């Protein structure tokens, strides 16, 4: 059969699955997930209640090996050129039970929850672009951080040396032959230990919700340390039904850019009682309500852009779905557009510095949540 001789659509391997498993766990709240494979990596998309869409972007460079061969839709030679063009455009997509995939990766119990390293090196969230499409931006960012990262690499490699002595790692090799074929995994813990072969049935992908974020009408844009958001969300009791995010323009926003920070702080303190908080999270449930205010402090809200008062409500369960992704993330970008669509992006730092001297450093993996607001009339 000629089709059997085609190279597999995806071949990837990684020597330590913990980081990958951590990324997958971040979106593991619905079992059916759509995996899309492209030249640059893979994305995992899940959707809940037609109002929450979560996507994990995993770039090819976190894998030790990543080979993607576009699947030819058919062998008919009607018009070669356009066909091959189409094939380039087209990405391989399939649906898999995500929970099963994670269980398989953790079969030796060594893809545990401590996926990200404790060394949370400060990383600048790249300037928040509408989409992750602008490659140049990434490259600039990477180069700018280059020497700094080099220093870090020295530190972490020592750390890594100690870690490898005490902890076992699970290596994984993944292949996907094409639509209709199962996703094959080969997992091994150590060279002479047992190996596990898994075949996970794949399904044809079903169309997902389209939730385009209207970047031109961004009403609120915040970048903050993930732990600040995680602490707030983990405080919430499951009985809360509705979460409201309220943003207010920063006090004397015009002067703030030019003025000294100390002066600004003083004035903020003076007028503190009068000024509405810049970011307030309000939770309402059957047993009561709770309000959490974020202070106007660069330490907390690294970036804050808001032109006018913003107030949108979301289902609390949808927002708290992000907690697992927040667990391993360092920075969060929170944006709300004029229709109330909230976009949360979590930067997931890789535990091992991937930028070796001489090689181009890649983009950080991240997880993206898009949540539709509740209708205010209901």
């Amino acid at each position, binding site marked *: 059969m000629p089709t059997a001789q085609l190279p597999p659509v995806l071949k990837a391997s990684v020597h330590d699955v913990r980081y990958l498993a951590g990324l997958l766990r971040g979106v593991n709240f619905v079992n059916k997930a759509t995996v899309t494979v492209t030249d640059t990596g893979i994305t995992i998309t899940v959707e809940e209640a037609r109002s929450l869409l979560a996507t994990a972007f995993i770039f090819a460079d976190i894998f030790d090996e990543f080979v993607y061969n576009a699947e030819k839709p058919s062998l008919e030679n009607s018009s070669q050129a356009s066909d091959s063009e189409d094939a380039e455009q087209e990405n391989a997509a399939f649906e898999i*039970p995500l929970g*099963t995939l994670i*269980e*398989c990766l*953790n*079969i*030796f*119990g060594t893809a545990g929850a401590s996926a990200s390293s404790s060394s949370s090196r400060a990383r600048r969230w790249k300037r928040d672009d509408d989409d992750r499409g602008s490659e140049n931006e990434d490259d600039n960012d990477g180069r700018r951080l280059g020497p700094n990262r080099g220093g870090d690499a020295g530190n972490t490699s020592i750390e890594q040396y100690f870690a490898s002595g005490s902890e076992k790692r699970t290596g994984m090799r993944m292949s996907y032959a094409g639509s209709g074929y*199962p996703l094959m995994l080969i997992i091994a813990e150590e060279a*002479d*230990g*047992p*190996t*596990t*072969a*898994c*075949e*996970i*049935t794949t399904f044809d992908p079903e169309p997902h919700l389209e939730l385009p974020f209207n970047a031109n009408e961004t009403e609120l844009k915040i970048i903050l340390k993930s732990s600040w958001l995680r602490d707030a969300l983990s405080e919430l009791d499951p009985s809360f039904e509705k979460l409201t995010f309220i943003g207010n323009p920063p006090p004397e926003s015009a002067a703030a850019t030019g003025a000294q920070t100390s002066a600004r702080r003083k004035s903020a303190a003076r007028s503190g009682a009068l000024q509405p908080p810049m970011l307030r999270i309000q939770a309402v449930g059957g047993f009561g309500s709770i309000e959490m205010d974020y202070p106007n402090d660069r330490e907390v809200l690294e970036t804050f852009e808001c032109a006018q008062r913003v107030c949108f409500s979301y289902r609390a369960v949808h927002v708290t779905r992000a907690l697992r992704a927040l667990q391993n993330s360092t920075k969060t970008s929170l944006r709300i557009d004029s229709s109330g669509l909230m976009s949360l992006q979590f930067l997931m730092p890789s535990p091992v510095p991937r930028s070796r001297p001489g090689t181009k450093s890649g983009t950080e993996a991240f997880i993206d949540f898009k949540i539709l607001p509740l209708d205010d009339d209901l």
Partner: protein
Amino acid sequence: MRFRTTISNVPTFFRIIQAIEKLQRKFVMKFTETELHIICNHEANEGGIQVWSQIKVDSLFTAYRIQSNANNEISLALSSEALLLALKSATASAEAGAAGDVDEVVLKLAKKNGHAVLSFEIAGATRMGKSVRVAHDVRIDVMKPTDVALLREPMCPEPDIHILLPPLQKLRTIVDRMRPMSDILAVRANNSGRLTLSINTDSVKIDTEWRNCTNPKMSSFALYFVVFHGELTSLSAREGSQEEPDEPPDPEKMFTVLVSIRSFLKFLNSHVVSTTTIACVCQHHCMILYVYIGDVADAGGVLTFYIPAIIDDGDH
């Protein structure tokens, strides 16, 4: 009927009962002059798992005295949980006595308020050095010899394959992950040291494979004790090289048995006692697991688990 002994190896006894307690609430202990038999053969057990074990009296007890009309054997039915709790207090006092006090756990058969009990007398010392005596009674039912005679080990054909299992703790991690995905586990082994554990469902197929396991060379259960008293060193030295002329012609042939994954996990609870475990596969019939207690050098006994096969018409 008289029975009195000192428990010299409380931790091992505790761990054995720990493994039993997960399996069955009420079980049978049969004391003979030389051995303690532990029997769990309740019909209602998950997947029909049974335990028939023999432990040498010397490996657990000292100053062992037993006397009865039934050929100096005493059989008791008792609650595994109650026994475990009594042994737990005995272990705790053994820890407290680590300061150097000799302490003693005496086990005897007694009758209190018209009920037969196993009475634990635990002598220990507090941290302050004061001596403490704790008595712990476990209510038991003494079994009639006629009832004891009805207890029969399951009949099994000659196993197709014997294989030494990897550390049970590792197996347990893997089987724990598989459990939510499937109810049935396929165990396969061959005579060249290969062992696989697999599940196969509509959504996932997982095979975990070990190579270089040891196939102990013997054909009957009686020989196992011989192995563990003298031959084991040569056994492990033989690992990997399988020149055995008397073995079946095809050492690559895999023998398969399907078992309930929950039963298998219950057996894996015995990882607390195990040092060495031999698995036997009787293809399409059952699986027998010999869990050796304590150090191999002084193999004090063996816990034998029987897990019946699940006959499945599927494509396993």
